């Protein structure tokens, strides 16, 4: 008897080491997986930040501008030749430059945005006409790239964006203190542009904001109402089962399909304006609805039945029970789901390509029916541009988009932690 017992324990002990080894292996594999994914994430963030942070600065150039009254017709200030003022100032600064092609090379050092800047100054204050001022204007993207060290001077001249003579001029300007890097405000306040130094994400951000507004206004009430009806009022039968299965399937439909649907229904059938945030929002609504419905149903299910019984037991009607007791308790969960859905809508680009929100749009959209792009589409557009300066802007725009997403998901997590109840 006792012989038997000892041998059992021995057997167990013999197996024990193997069990512990297996457990240790299992834990190591798990740890490895986490380290691996964190490493990839870190690499991703590092490259994006490294490529993009320079875009938050922009090189500016100081010009001595004589606001020549002969070139500025007080009656027609908007049509005046501001470009001419800029060119004259450049010629005055480099009197040795001669010949058409050299002059042209000189002029390209300054962004075409300089003329707009002068126009704005004159229109704002006509008193400056006839005076001479020192004016800082944006330099061209090539100058910017050189100053940021993205152009290799040792390359042969033909492979470079800037010629030797342009390099000499730039060096002279630097020496005179007429070139400086400043915070790139235009990146946050301007719409898209063919000139990288003038291009900004504001237009796309507004487009995204309008789109999300539509999505939120439609998908939250509809999603919550659907979830409440299915969860609290509908009797379980074949029809509700069918609806449930379909909602779950919809959540798995690739987003581009929703874009096709939007193209067919909203644009071709209802004739809504192409490229508009309105249509984008409608498509995103279709896409996020299943997410919100599913999250809302889970939130409703997590409200304990005892609360419903308590309310019904003292004679609250079904609707009073839901509105007074169940909904307030489920709301944080519903909001969390909605924010996550909104985050997905913000980061989505494929369906927008189908409904034309992929155009080159300079103007900041002023209404829901104006043409617009969205942030991820803007990133997609810039990533396609050959100019090197667009590359850093692409990364910078990704950083902004990620910041928005982190903000939204952070809010969702905060909501969940703050209002989550333990029963």
């Amino acid at each position: 008897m006792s012989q038997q017992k000892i041998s059992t324990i021995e057997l167990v002990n013999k197996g024990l080491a193997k069990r512990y080894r297996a457990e240790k292996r299992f834990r190591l594999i798990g740890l490895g997986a986490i380290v691996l994914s964190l490493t990839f994430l870190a690499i991703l963030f590092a490259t994006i930040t490294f490529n993009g942070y320079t875009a938050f600065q922009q090189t500016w150039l100081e010009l001595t501008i004589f606001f020549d009254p002969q070139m500025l017709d007080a009656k027609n200030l908007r049509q005046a030749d501001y470009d001419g003022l800029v060119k004259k100032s450049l010629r005055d600064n480099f009197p040795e430059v001669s010949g058409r092609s050299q002059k042209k090379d000189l002029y390209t050092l300054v962004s075409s945005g300089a003329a707009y800047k002068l126009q704005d100054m004159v229109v704002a204050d006509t008193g400056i006409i006839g005076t001479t001022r020192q004016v800082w204007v944006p330099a061209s993207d090539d100058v910017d790239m050189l100053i940021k060290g993205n152009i290799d001077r040792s390359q042969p001249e033909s492979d470079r964006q800037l010629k030797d003579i342009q390099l000499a001029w730039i060096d002279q300007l630097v020496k005179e203190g007429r070139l400086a890097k400043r915070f790139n405000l235009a990146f946050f306040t301007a719409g898209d542009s063919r000139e990288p130094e003038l291009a900004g994400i504001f237009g796309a951000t507004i487009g995204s904001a309008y789109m999300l507004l539509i999505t939120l206004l439609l998908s939250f009430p509809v999603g919550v109402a659907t979830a409440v009806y299915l969860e609290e009022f509908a009797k379980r039968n074949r029809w509700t089962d069918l609806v449930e299965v379909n909602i779950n399937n919809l959540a798995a439909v690739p987003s581009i399909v929703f874009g096709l649907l939007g193209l067919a229904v909203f644009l071709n059938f209802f004739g809504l304006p192409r490229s508009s945030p309105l249509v984008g929002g409608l498509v995103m609504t279709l896409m996020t609805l299943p997410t919100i419905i599913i999250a809302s149903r889970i939130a409703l299910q997590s409200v304990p039945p005892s609360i419903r019984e308590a309310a019904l037991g003292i004679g609250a009607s079904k609707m009073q029970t839901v509105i007074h007791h169940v909904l307030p308790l489920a709301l944080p969960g519903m909001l969390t789901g909605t924010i996550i859905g909104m985050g997905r809508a913000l980061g989505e680009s494929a369906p927008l390509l189908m409904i034309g929100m992929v155009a080159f749009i300079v103007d900041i959209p002023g209404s829901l029916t104006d043409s617009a792009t969205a942030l991820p589409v803007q990133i997609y557009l810039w990533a396609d541009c050959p100019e090197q300066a667009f590359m850093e802007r692409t990364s910078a725009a990704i950083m902004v988009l990620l910041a928005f997403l982190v903000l939204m998901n952070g809010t969702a997590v905060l909501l969940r932690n703050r209002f989550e109840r333990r029963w």
Partner: protein
Amino acid sequence: MVEKKSQLISVDDRKTVGQQFVENPRMTCRDVNVYYGDKHAVHDVSIDIARNEVLAMIGPSGCGKSTFLRCLNRMNDTIDICRVTGEITLDDNDIYAKNIDIVSLRALVGMVFQKPNPFPKSIYDNVAYGPTIHGLTESKSDLDGIVENSLVKAGLWDEVKDRLDQPGTGLSGGQQQRLCIARAIAVEPELILMDEPCSALDPIATAKIEELIAELREQYTIVIVTHNMQQAARVSQRTAYFHLGDLIEVGYTDRLFTTPRHQLTEDYITGRFG
């Protein structure tokens, strides 16, 4: 001993015995059957509930006590698959008739549940909720009066009068259950159904609730489900014994526990199963 046993009704006979009917009843139940889908949970139960009595329902778990109790204020309507047949009247009105409004029925027949389930709101709001939705009060001071009165009746006033604005969920288990009773009383019901109200409470809290039941009996008719036979003996005037969906025996409490007439009842109260 062997002699006495032979006089008991055999386990195979499931017809209800004892004082299941009374004169001038408050509620009557006739041939009540309850089904959950295909499952037949309560079989042909007929019983009266007298005025101002405490009726205890006992029996092994799963025998259908809760299910039957929930028929009395139609709480079973909230379960999709649940179907009730038979006739239940309250003051001679069929409560399952089409013209009966569930809301007013439940205002008249209050319920206290097994697990204390205060709303996650303030103590005041918990009690005030019922009167507010039923429009029982005209003014805030009326409502204050009802809240105080209900809490006093539930024996909770002295303990909570200084913290009415604190969450009801922060009270102890026994206090929560008394809060739930106060919440039920605030609607001024005439019957109160209690489904194992003390099963989640410690002995001291249980004693308080039992005292409370004894006091409430003067104003209300109470039907209480309990799996605790001592409790049934302490608080009730009549006791009904359920077994696997059948109502086996109903009797005056003191008699049922001393001289049961059915074999199954005796087996249960002598602790042979349960």
